[in-house]
């Protein structure tokens, strides 16, 4: 009886690990998709609304992106604060976004839109790669995890 329970637990653990790895791929894809939307919104706010950096950050902070919580900062040196928050967030491409935000508002509108476009392009490539990876490896990770758990259970029990 105990052996059967042990086998089930070990197999379930393996399956959970595999499932978590698959979810991690999906999470990365979602974060990058959110980041694309965020950069699109920043581009629109820059070009159509002529908003200041603080106003743009307030709008992004009020949105529902996974990165939005990092933009809810106030006071002087707002770009440094948001950048620091992004760097420690652990979200997809947070390092690149932090570098972009650290120098936000330091060029004229054309330069700012060009920087935005450049980052958006990098994120787009990363998103395509993440989507491809998720499609390819999700099932492999799940099956692999389950199999590893089962093998471990058989070996140990």
């Amino acid at each position, binding site marked *: 009886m105990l052996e059967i329970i042990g086998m089930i637990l070990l197999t379930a653990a393996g399956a959970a690990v595999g499932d978590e790895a698959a979810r991690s791929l999906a999470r990365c894809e979602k974060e990058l998709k959110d980041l694309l939307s965020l950069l699109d919104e920043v581009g629109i706010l820059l070009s159509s609304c002529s908003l200041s950096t603080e106003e743009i950050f307030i709008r992004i902070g009020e949105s529902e992106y996974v990165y939005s919580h990092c933009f809810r900062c106030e006071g002087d040196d707002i770009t440094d604060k948001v950048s620091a928050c992004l760097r420690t967030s652990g979200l997809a491409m947070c390092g690149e976004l932090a570098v972009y935000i650290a120098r936000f508002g330091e060029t*004229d509108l054309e330069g700012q839109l060009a920087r935005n476009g450049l980052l958006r392009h990098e994120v787009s490539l990363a998103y395509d790669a993440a989507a491809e990876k998720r499609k390819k490896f999700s099932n492999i990770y799940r099956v692999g995890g389950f199999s590893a758990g089962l093998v471990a259970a058989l070996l140990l029990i």
Partner: protein
Amino acid sequence: MDKNKGLESALRLLPQDICAEIRALPEKTLEQLNEIRLRSGRNVVLTVGRSFLELGITAETEDIHTAAVRAFRNSLHTSTEQLCSGYVTYDNGCRVGFAGTACAENGSVVNIKHINSVCIRIPREVTGCGSEIFDRYLSERPVSLLICGAPSSGKTTCLRDIARLCGRRYRTALIDERGEIAAVSSGNACCDIGLMTDVFDRYPRKAAVETAVRVMSPQIIICDEIGSEEDIASLSYVVCSGVKLTATCHSGSIDELFRKPNISRLLENEVFDVLVYLENGRMVQTREIYSRQCSKL
């Protein structure tokens, strides 16, 4: 406005090492600090009272960039026009001037790159510095007054105090085109500009003057640094509307006013009743040119 607020605002613009160097100065020096100048590759220079103080710290290109970006609140993308005009007004009336490499088109500056000099002017509210002028010319009735002087002779500081005194007695409209005189922040004036003073903050002068005359029924309009072509029509309109005008302009002497192309036209149009020349914040020369008075029938 507390002088310290102006100084604190100015120090917030500076990189940490330069800020620390300035904070380490004696209290008496800081009280008289008027300007902080950063020039790329050269030592930081302060204007303390009437003299200069060179600090032993060099302003690098990155330091100037930091000060400039902070002055524009990290929003250069919305501030190209202000950048091209060469200055921006920061918190508590701090005026930050820039010099750099211009991108010009058809004789106009369309952008500035590589800012290499920054001048941070710390506003001073000196209560009572305009009393002499006010008591002599404005205490009984509003008159049109032109205050002239060399740069940094105290014209704006004096004008601020005159606005305060006028605002206690007359309906006053203050045209604060650069945001330096009243230092309005979130709709509140940081300086004492008088009970009955309406502030037109950052309005273009022409629009402000016309709006003020039409909707605020002022007895006196106050504006700083006149002298452009556009001023001739708008300020003549003010006086023809029965409103008195107190303004400042750059000039080396009262006689020089009559040689300045646009100011001389204003003087010919009898816009001003009194001319005052300031030196080191004090009235040193005046000329009264009151308009011909109409006699009662």
